[in-house]
């Protein structure tokens, strides 16, 4: 199809190649270098989208990141992207885009009826109604009416990367100022990172290629700058890269779009879709430019109305005529740039409507010389045209700029280029907590005081709009940044680039609300936030209703809360509010600038931390063996632990019962590698352990082991485990599997912040050792066969450890037990783990050695009434509650949590205490988490709960169901009856001692 609005020449596009794309099901062509917006305009397509609330037809309003209207749904599932700004989507071959938020079609959108009812839907209407009978009735339809594009329905197949960068200087923005700063610092040898959101460098010079810099056309200067930067080895230039966030200490986030601009079939497979750069910069120069501010006039939202700078950009950068007959509305000289560009491109230019009383600047003079009709002191009082602008009405204003005279003269036009001044792009500066000041002359907020050291703002972003001045400022900032980063000058440096032939900016005329023939809010809308359909009348309504803080105005009307985050609307809203309240603009103030500058893909934040890589998966050296045995696994912390080993035909219940029985009857083996292991070394190690455990460790003899409980400051059990004294100044602490990292953190925190004088060093050795526990009547026999250790109870008593060889491998063996059977915990260096394990399995065959998983381990320990931290405890349980008074030292002057144990409520007899529970019929296994109550009746809630079941199993060794529970005052209630109300029935049960098996503890000794 012909690109009938493409100019015969000009623009930074490759006319030798054509790219096919489709929009709304129709095919078009464009060129490399086009954006979707420029290509659509080249084909005469102006109607692109519909607004959020009233579904008004909307076109292409800008040529950049500030676009409020031209949002499209790009691509198809699974690679579909909602709410993409057509002005920033680079065209590629085969691109498909669809309009969004309209039904049944873009041209004919039934939802536009909302527009007819707009009188009934002012800002905040939903706060005033939909209350009867309830909100639920209305919410569904309202939710469906809201939203813009459509979220993907299939998982994203693309890949994202994250990387870090460190540099001497980060320059944000590749326009003239950014280039000048990067060149100045780069020439000194500084490591410079220059990021530019656009696909190419040059910034606004791309739409004024014949401006003059250093005696050459700007386009050539940009090209030379690019080439020079590329030649500097320490300089890196990232295009298609948006600096979206600025945190403390010059830490910034950059999103690089790596392959989005490729046709899907030509996307390099080795590259990610997007890459997030996390930049730590010694110096930062913000050269993020400025965004044109639209004037707010009646019906200022029709397709065909666009920013004057955008009109220029489409003409000069993309060689596209954005209209056939144009009108320009401006309050400053830069509107004339567009007028001249339009005229030069052969567009029929009806007139320039200048809100100023007199148009007397260099550009307006030039326009007058070229015969462009200028109507100063005039306003556009309204527009017409449904799917495309058809005419605008122009009328003279009074001297105050508050009213117009006459009904307005209609002027036919299909393009209305508008300029209401410029807003420095201060987003990043403000994110870094810099404060703004209101510049009366330029009528804009500009950076005032920086809160970051080593930061400069230059060029348009600093309100320095004149090209020559911006170049000088940026050059100086680049040199200063280099200097500060330690790159001194040589004395024979190049001067700042000089711009030629530029004029000064004349002051603009501050009129935030362009008057119309009727008062604001009548007979048309003065849109402030176009995407959200927030009109000036909505702002005034908010003020009238008492929402006067600019934050209230924003939240009540939703102005500035659309996907463009108010880039073209915020300052207008502030201006209108200020005018109405009779306050100076700076007193109204700005709303907080938040990250990101433009929206950032979730996937880029996640990077590779998805698809199973969210958290490291930790496995033991014997993991493969467990898998080969068909083990089921459970997640414990980051670890995969063998849960049970079902044999063919066995369900979990049968397998666990078999494992439990085999261990008590003969011999079981457990992979206990995952238990946390921390080596505690140093002359103060014993003293340190005395402080972190409730019981005494300084008295522990070398070669012996002791079980310990750790408390938090509040006296609640935090972790437990056996700690062994390897040498006078060296202990091996074990922790729970899930708690290991927290315990290490906790210990380090105390060492580093509270007891820095202690000489204690902590090393995590969890993964250095493979640990296997053999347990059962035959454990001693097996160990005797495969090791050189003396196992008689004299030399190797319970709670001691020995070093020797097991299966030929040097091992630490601990005689400790979590099953109540005689047990040995064999630790060998991790790389021998599997070999030793297999040897034990082979040698143990004659004892029917049975691997058991965590479930059987839980049953075995519950039979003995041993707790599991995190199951019997939940952060609200003290050692006393657990009946473990014996482990709380009465002799030690202090340990962590001790003081808390003496608080009155910690000593009350009705605290929840650990007990055993047996069900009435003995066979019914209570669900874990069952609550316990006093009575059986169907009481009305709230039913007082006296406790809950923490662990519950079928015990094959006891031949009945057993459970552990925390019950109020439970230790004094042995034999009493309680009830467990479940979803479908109530189970009667009895309180017992928490030890169900071998109460005397004789089996420990074989």
């Amino acid at each position, binding site marked *: 199809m012909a690109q009938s609005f493409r100019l015969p020449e000009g623009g930074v596009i490759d006319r030798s190649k054509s790219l096919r794309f489709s929009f709304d099901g129709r095919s078009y062509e464009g060129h490399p270098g086009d954006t979707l917006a420029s290509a659509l305009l080249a084909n005469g397509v102006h109607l692109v989208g519909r607004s959020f609330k009233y579904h008004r037809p909307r076109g292409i309003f800008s040529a950049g990141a500030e676009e409020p209207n031209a949002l499209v749904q790009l691509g198809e599932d699974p690679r579909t992207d909602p*709410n993409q700004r057509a002005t920033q989507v680079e065209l590629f071959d085969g691109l498909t885009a669809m309009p969004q938020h309209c039904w049944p079609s873009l041209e004919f959108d039934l939802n536009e009826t909302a527009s007819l009812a707009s009188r009934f839907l002012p800002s905040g209407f939903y706060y005033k109604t939909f209350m009867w009978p309830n909100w639920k009735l209305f919410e569904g339809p309202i939710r469906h009416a809201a939203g813009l594009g459509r979220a993907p329905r299939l998982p994203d197949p693309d890949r994202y990367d994250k990387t870090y960068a460190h540099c001497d200087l980060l320059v944000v923005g590749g326009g003239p100022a950014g280039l000048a700063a990067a060149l100045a610092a780069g020439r000194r040898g500084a490591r410079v990172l220059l990021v530019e959101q656009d696909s190419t460098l040059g910034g606004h010079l791309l739409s004024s290629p014949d401006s003059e810099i250093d005696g050459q056309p700007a386009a050539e200067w940009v090209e030379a700058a690019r080439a020079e930067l590329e030649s500097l080895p320490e300089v890196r230039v990232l295009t298609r890269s948006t600096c979206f966030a600025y*945190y403390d200490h010059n830490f910034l986030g950059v999103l690089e779009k790596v392959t989005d601009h490729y046709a899907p079939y030509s996307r390099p497979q080795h590259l990610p879709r997007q890459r997030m750069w996390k930049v730590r910069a010694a110096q930062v120069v913000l050269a993020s430019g400025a965004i044109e501010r639209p004037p707010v006039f009646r019906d200022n939202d029709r397709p065909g109305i666009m920013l004057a700078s955008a009109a220029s950009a489409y003409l000069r950068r993309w060689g596209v005529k954005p209209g056939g007959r144009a009108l320009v509305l401006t309050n400053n000289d830069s509107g004339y740039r567009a007028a001249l560009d339009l005229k030069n491109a052969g567009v029929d230019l009806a007139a320039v409507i200048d809100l100023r009383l007199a148009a007397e600047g260099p550009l307006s003079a030039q326009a007058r010389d070229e015969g462009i009709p200028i109507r100063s002191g005039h306003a556009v009082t309204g527009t017409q045209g449904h799917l495309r602008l058809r005419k605008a009405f122009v009328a003279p204003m009074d001297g105050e700029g508050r009213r117009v005279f006459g009904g307005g003269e209609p002027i036919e036009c299909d393009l209305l280029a508008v300029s209401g001044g410029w807003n420095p792009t201060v987003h990043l500066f403000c994110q870094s907590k810099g404060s703004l000041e209101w510049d009366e002359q330029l009528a804009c907020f500009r950076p005032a005081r920086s809160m970051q050291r080593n930061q400069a703002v230059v060029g348009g972003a600093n309100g320095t709009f004149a090209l020559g001045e911006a170049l000088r400022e940026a050059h100086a900032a680049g040199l200063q940044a280099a200097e500060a980063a330690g790159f001194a000058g040589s004395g024979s440096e190049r001067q700042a680039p000089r711009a030629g032939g530029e004029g000064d900016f004349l002051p603009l005329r501050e009129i935030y609300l362009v008057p119309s023939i009727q008062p604001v809010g009548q007979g048309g809308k003065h849109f402030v936030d176009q995407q959200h359909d927030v009109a000036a009348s909505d702002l005034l309504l908010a003020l009238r*209703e008492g929402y006067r803080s600019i934050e209230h105005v924003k939240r009540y009307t939703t102005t500035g809360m659309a996907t463009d985050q108010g880039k073209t609307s915020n300052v207008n809203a502030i201006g209108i509010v200020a005018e109405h309240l009779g306050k100076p603009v700076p007193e109204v103030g700005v709303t907080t600038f938040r990250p990101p500058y433009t929206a950032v*893909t979730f996937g880029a934040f996640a990077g590779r931390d998805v*698809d199973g890589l969210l958290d490291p998966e930790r496995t033991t050296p014997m993991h493969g063996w467990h898998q080969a045995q068909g083990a089921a696994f459970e*997640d414990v912390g980051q670890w995969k632990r063998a849960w049970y080993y079902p044999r063919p035909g066995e369900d979990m219940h049968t397998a666990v019962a078999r494992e439990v029985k085999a261990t008590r009857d003969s011999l079981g083996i457990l992979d206990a590698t995952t238990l946390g292991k921390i080596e505690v070394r140093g002359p103060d190690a014993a003293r340190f352990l005395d402080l972190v455990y409730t019981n005494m460790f300084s008295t522990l003899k070398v070669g012996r082991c002791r079980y310990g409980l750790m408390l938090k400051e509040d006296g609640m059990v935090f972790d437990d485990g056996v700690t062994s004294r390897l040498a006078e100044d060296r202990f091996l602490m074990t922790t729970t599997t899930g708690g290991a990292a927290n315990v290490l953190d906790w210990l380090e925190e105390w060492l580093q912040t509270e007891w820095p004088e202690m000489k204690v060093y902590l090393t995590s050795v969890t993964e250095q050792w493979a640990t296997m526990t053999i347990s059962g009547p035959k454990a001693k026999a097996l160990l005797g066969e495969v090791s050189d250790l003396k196992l008689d109870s004299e030399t190797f008593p319970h709670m001691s450890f020995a070093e020797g060889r097991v299966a030929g491998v040097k091992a630490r063996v601990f005689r400790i037990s979590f099953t109540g059977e005689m047990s040995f915990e064999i630790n060998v260096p991790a790389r021998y783990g599997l070999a030793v394990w297999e040897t034990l399995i082979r040698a143990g065959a004659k004892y029917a050695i049975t691997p058991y998983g965590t479930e059987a381990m839980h049953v075995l320990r519950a039979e003995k009434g041993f707790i599991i931290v995190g199951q019997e405890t939940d952060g*609200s349980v003290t050692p006393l509650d657990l009946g473990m008074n014996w482990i709380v030292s009465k002799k030690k002057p202090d340990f962590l949590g001790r003081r808390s144990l003496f608080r009155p409520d910690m000593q009350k007899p009705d605290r929840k205490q650990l007990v055993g529970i047996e069900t009435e019929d003995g066979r019914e296994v209570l669900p874990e988490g069952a609550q316990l109550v006093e009575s059986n009746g169907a009481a009305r809630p709230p039913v007082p709960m006296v406790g809950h079941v923490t662990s519950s199993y079928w015990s094959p060794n006891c031949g009945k169901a057993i459970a552990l529970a925390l019950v109020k005052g439970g230790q004094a209630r042995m034999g009493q009856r309680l009830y467990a109300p479940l979803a479908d029935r109530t189970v009667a049960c009895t309180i017992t001692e928490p030890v169900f098996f071998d109460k005397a503890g004789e089996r420990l000794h074989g």
Partner: protein
Amino acid sequence: MRLKRWFKAALHRRVAADTIQPETGIGRCGTTGWSEGAATGMNKRYSIFSLARNAFSRHENWQEAWRSPTPKPRYDAVIIGGGGHGLATAYYLAKQHGMTNIAVLERGWLGGGNTGRNTTIVRSNYLWDESAALYEQAMKLWEGLSRELNYNVMFSQRGVLNLAHNLHDLREIQRRVNANRLNGIDGEVLDAQQVKDFCPAIDLRAGGRYPVLGASLQRRGGTARHDAVAWGYARAADALGVDIIQECPVQGIRVADGKVQGVETARGYIETNKLGIVVAGHSSLLAEMAGFRLPVQSVPLQALVSEPVKPAINCVVMSGAVHAYISQSDKGELVIGAGVDKYVGYGQRGSQPVTEETVAAICEMFPIFRRMRMMRQWGGIVDVCPDASPIISKTPVEGIYINCGWGTGGFKATPGSGWAFAHTVARNEPHPLNAPFTLDRYRTGYLIDEHGAAAVAH
């Protein structure tokens, strides 16, 4: 037929109202709340009819939602903090306890703190009896709040899922749901398939690392429009005569003989014998002014929203293990909650590493959302107590009451918190609902440890 008559009557009232100049704002609504205002056809009551009526006058006759009074030299009670909790306190003081000569002092703008920064989740499925009772009281108030305040707070009971990703989670969910039911709070345990049925957007594989094994569901849980809660309470309190004073930072608290005398503010000294402090994020600073200390730590908690899309997820999904929560606003944004920063601070931002972790967790649970884009990210300062439960209590200074320490979960409690705190301030003693939540409990050891129930690990 009836509707038509009603509409006619409403139009008639509009004409009447237009002849009365509704500017003064005095006695606009009487002291009994909205019913009287409605009965007399006052223009201020919100309804579909008042909306229609005002449409014909181009919305030029709406009254201010609240006045902007000059502070009086003395009030019967002063509430510091114009967030949801503070405004709710003032409302219930006036409504339930007849205290109308009271003021709310707000440093900045109403609802500008955590009220306007949270992820708007409302639920009451707390584990411990003490918390359950308090949050359930809030839930009951939520259920009638829009109509009580005559302000649509868009309370949307779309259901809250708390996912289980391991056996430990499953156990905890069982325990909590059992406890909830016995406390009269709705709760269900869902298996994985039921989770998928309830929330089709979810990926049960959850990326593969921590598959979804089940969930608890509270159907009465959901979301509400956070700003509207502050505004609705402010408007209703104002109508009952409460002075709401914005841009009025408190600079000092005068105490004599262990009793509060008044507050120094940027707008002058205000005398009062009852001072309620409800300033999440700055509680310890205000306590310091009054001369006592609080066991709270202030940390930044962040949240973020995506660009708006058509309805994509129909309920609230929370995961403690994978560590993120998500819902979709009525506007269409995915609203995502994140963890707290790893250090204390007052910067209302939230650090990038936490954003990365949270968004990664969302991408894991919802691979379909990986292409969605973060539109805005922000932070608020939460005051966290050692047991992750709030303090609604008298203080060592007579006449000073404090409501703080809600940590990461204060929004859902707003009505209940205000209701109980109002009782405490008015009667100088806690209501049984908040009696357990004393400041003293850290001395006595009566802790209410809700770390397990908090959606965010503290």
